[in-house]
C-alpha cells in the first residue's frame, strides 16, 4: 500500500516554484486522446520502476499533472511522449530519494497468471519467466532499470533515452551494455 500521499507530491511541486495559476498546456479533449494513447505504457513504466501498483497510480497522476503544467510546445508527438517519460522518470526518482523501498517482487504477474497456470502448463512456464524478469529488474540499480526499460520495452533511441535520463548520448551504449550484463547475471544466464 502506498504511504506517499498526493499531498506530499503537491508540496514538492509547490516547493519547486511552479506557477499554479497558469492554464494547462492542452484542453480536456486533447488531453483525453493523449492520455488514452500513453497512460498504460507510462503506468507499466512506473510500476516497473517502483514495484508498487498503488504507488504507480499516484505517480501516474503526478506525472500527467506536471506534464500539463509544463506549458511547453512540442515539435511532434514523439517529443511530447519523450517529455512525458522524462517527467515520469523524475517523479519516480523523487520517490527513491524519499527513501521508498526498492521494488521487490512482481505481484501482478503472479496474480494474473495464477489462474492461467491451472489451465496451461506452458503458460505457467511463461509466468515463471516473467516473475524472474520482474525480480531481476527489481534488483537492478534504478538507472539500469530505467535504461533497460526505455531501450527495450519502450524502444526509445539512444538520444531519446539520454534526454529522458539526463545523460550523454555517447554514454548510453556503454551503460546499456553494462545494464544488460547485470540483468542477465541476475536472471542466472
Amino acid at each position, binding site marked *: 500500500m502506498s504511504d506517499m500521499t498526493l499531498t506530499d507530491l503537491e508540496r514538492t511541486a*509547490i516547493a519547486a516554484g511552479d506557477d499554479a495559476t497558469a492554464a494547462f498546456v492542452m484542453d480536456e479533449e486533447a488531453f483525453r486522446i493523449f*492520455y488514452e494513447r500513453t497512460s498504460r505504457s507510462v*503506468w507499466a513504466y512506473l*510500476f*516497473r520502476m517502483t514495484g508498487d501498483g498503488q504507488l504507480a497510480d499516484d505517480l*501516474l*497522476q503526478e506525472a500527467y499533472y506536471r506534464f500539463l503544467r509544463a506549458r511547453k510546445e512540442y515539435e511532434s508527438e514523439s517529443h511530447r511522449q519523450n517529455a512525458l517519460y522524462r517527467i515520469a522518470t523524475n517523479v519516480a526518482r523523487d520517490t527513491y530519494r524519499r527513501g521508498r523501498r526498492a521494488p521487490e517482487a512482481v505481484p501482478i*504477474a503472479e496474480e494474473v497468471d495464477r489462474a492461467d497456470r491451472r489451465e496451461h502448463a506452458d503458460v505457467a512456464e*511463461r509466468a515463471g519467466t516473467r516473475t524472474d524478469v520482474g525480480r531481476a529488474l527489481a534488483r537492478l540499480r534504478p538507472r539500469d532499470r530505467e535504461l533497460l526499460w526505455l531501450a527495450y520495452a519502450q524502444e526509445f533511441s539512444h538520444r531519446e533515452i539520454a534526454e529522458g535520463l539526463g545523460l550523454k548520448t555517447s554514454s548510453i551504449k556503454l551503460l546499456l551494455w553494462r545494464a544488460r550484463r547485470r540483468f542477465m547475471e541476475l*536472471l542466472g544466464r
Partner: protein
Amino acid sequence: MSILHHDPDDSLVAEVSDLLRAEHRMLCEKAHPPAAGVVWWRAERRRRDEAARMAARPITVVHAVASACGAGVAAALLQVLTPWLRQWISAAGGLARLLEWDTTSFPAGYITMLALVALASLVAPLALYVALSDDK
C-alpha cells in the same frame, strides 16, 4: 563484399529485448490506469487549490506583520500604564507586594526592552503559527 560477423552481444541484446518487450506487453494489457476524465478533474482541482493557496500567501504575511505590530503596541502601552496599574492594584488591596519593584530605579529603556522581550516570547509562537499554518 561484406564479411559476416556474429557479435555474441547481439544474441544478448535480442534476448533482453524479447524479455522486456513481453513484460511490457503483459503489463500494458493488465494495467488499469484511472480514466482520463478523473485524472483531468483531479489536475484541474489541484491547480485551482494551489492558485488559491498562492493567492492567500500575501494575506498570511500581512497577518504575521500585524501580529508583530500588535505586540509592539501592547508592550508600549504596558510601559506607559505600569505606574498607573501599580497604584490601582495597591489601592485595590494587598497585591502591592506583587509590584514592589520600583521602576524609577531602572533605566526606562531597560524596562521597555524587558517588556518587549517578554511579550515577543509570548506572541512570536502565535505569529509563526498563523504565518505557517496556511502552507500545510
